[in-house]
């Protein structure tokens, strides 16, 4: 058995296809963006490279990398700066983010849009110029990294706009489920489409209407991406 298969079989790391990552990180994420970043090397080696008829397979860690890159792009920094900055930052950030020992990362932002990053031990890495630039902390980004670290440790991420749904890498390989259950959103949506929400709730008294309706809405929105 080669290394990639061993990794695929490793417990609790999740197994995600590109469309599935785009689905979980909707509405901002697209299949195109995930593929682009994967091929640019920003996400590291996937569990398995796809080829004709075989999909790329990515891990939960890579799902969080995709989300983090999107967050860096959303941080208000000019796009022409953030693209090279992401390249430089990603290896440093990801090395820290998924390390056994976590030192909270802090981000700094100069007047001209340069980025510096340091960890809670006080070490600061300056990107682009190599100079020390500490005029203002990007607190939103710092908080985001802390949250991402928490998600990494519990192997679970929320799904934006759907408070009752999650992707947990340890449950059904990370397929979106109703929080606290192993009930897949795709299954619930199928049953709702077939029988209607009232009959589904009668059949499954452990579920509640809000969770069932969120699952159905999520799958409805996600369908074009999954196709």
């Amino acid at each position: 058995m080669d290394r990639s298969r061993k990794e695929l079989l490793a417990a609790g790391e999740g197994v995600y296809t590109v469309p599935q990552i785009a689905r979980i990180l909707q509405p901002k994420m697209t299949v195109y963006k995930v593929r682009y970043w994967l091929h640019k090397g920003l996400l590291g080696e996937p569990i398995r490279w796809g080829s004709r008829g075989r999909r790329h397979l990515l891990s939960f860690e890579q799902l969080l990398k995709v989300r983090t890159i999107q967050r860096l792009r959303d941080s208000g920094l000019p796009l022409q700066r953030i693209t090279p900055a992401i390249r430089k930052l990603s290896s440093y950030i990801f090395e820290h983010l998924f390390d056994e020992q976590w030192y909270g990362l802090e981000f700094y932002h100069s007047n001209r849009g340069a980025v510096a990053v340091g960890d809670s031990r006080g070490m600061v890495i300056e990107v682009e110029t190599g100079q020390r630039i500490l005029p203002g902390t990007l607190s939103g980004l710092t908080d985001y990294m802390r949250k991402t670290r928490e998600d990494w440790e519990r192997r679970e991420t929320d799904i934006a706009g759907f408070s009752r749904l999650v992707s947990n890498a340890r449950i059904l390989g990370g397929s979106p489920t109703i929080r606290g259950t192993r009930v897949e959103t795709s299954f619930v949506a199928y049953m709702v489409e077939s029988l209607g929400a009232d009959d589904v709730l009668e059949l499954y008294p452990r579920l509640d209407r809000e969770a069932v309706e969120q699952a159905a809405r999520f799958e409805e929105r996600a369908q074009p991406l999954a196709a």
Partner: protein
Amino acid sequence: MIILMDENLSSPALATNLNTHAKQYGCVFHLLPQHAMGFDDDDLPEVCRREGAVALLTNNKEDFGVEVALYRALIKAGVSAIVLRLPNPQVEKPDLAFLTSRVVKHLRKIVRELENANESLSLTVRKDRVKVDSVQELLRQRLM
């Protein structure tokens, strides 16, 4: 012989219906216990051991990652899966009557296969037949 119903199919009404017929074939269907809701894939062996289950009743999975995770967990647990293929809702509705009759129709064969199993099997329940596969082999095919 105990068959555990995975959370997607853990409907009390379905369990009641199935158990009306199951006794004559020497099996019983158990709902997933409340305390085990949302268990990790890696906890499947422990959940099955506590219930004394030899198989998990579940539905067909369309997602690659779900299939792989399920196969991996089944092999680790040493249990089989009874995979109920859900119909095209435009053709048939997957209501209580449908789910019950689809399983009961093939229950004799399902029990026989499980009794003779010496590895984890996937018993895919279709309209007219039950397709029997080695889970190990299915996993190998998915990872090729």
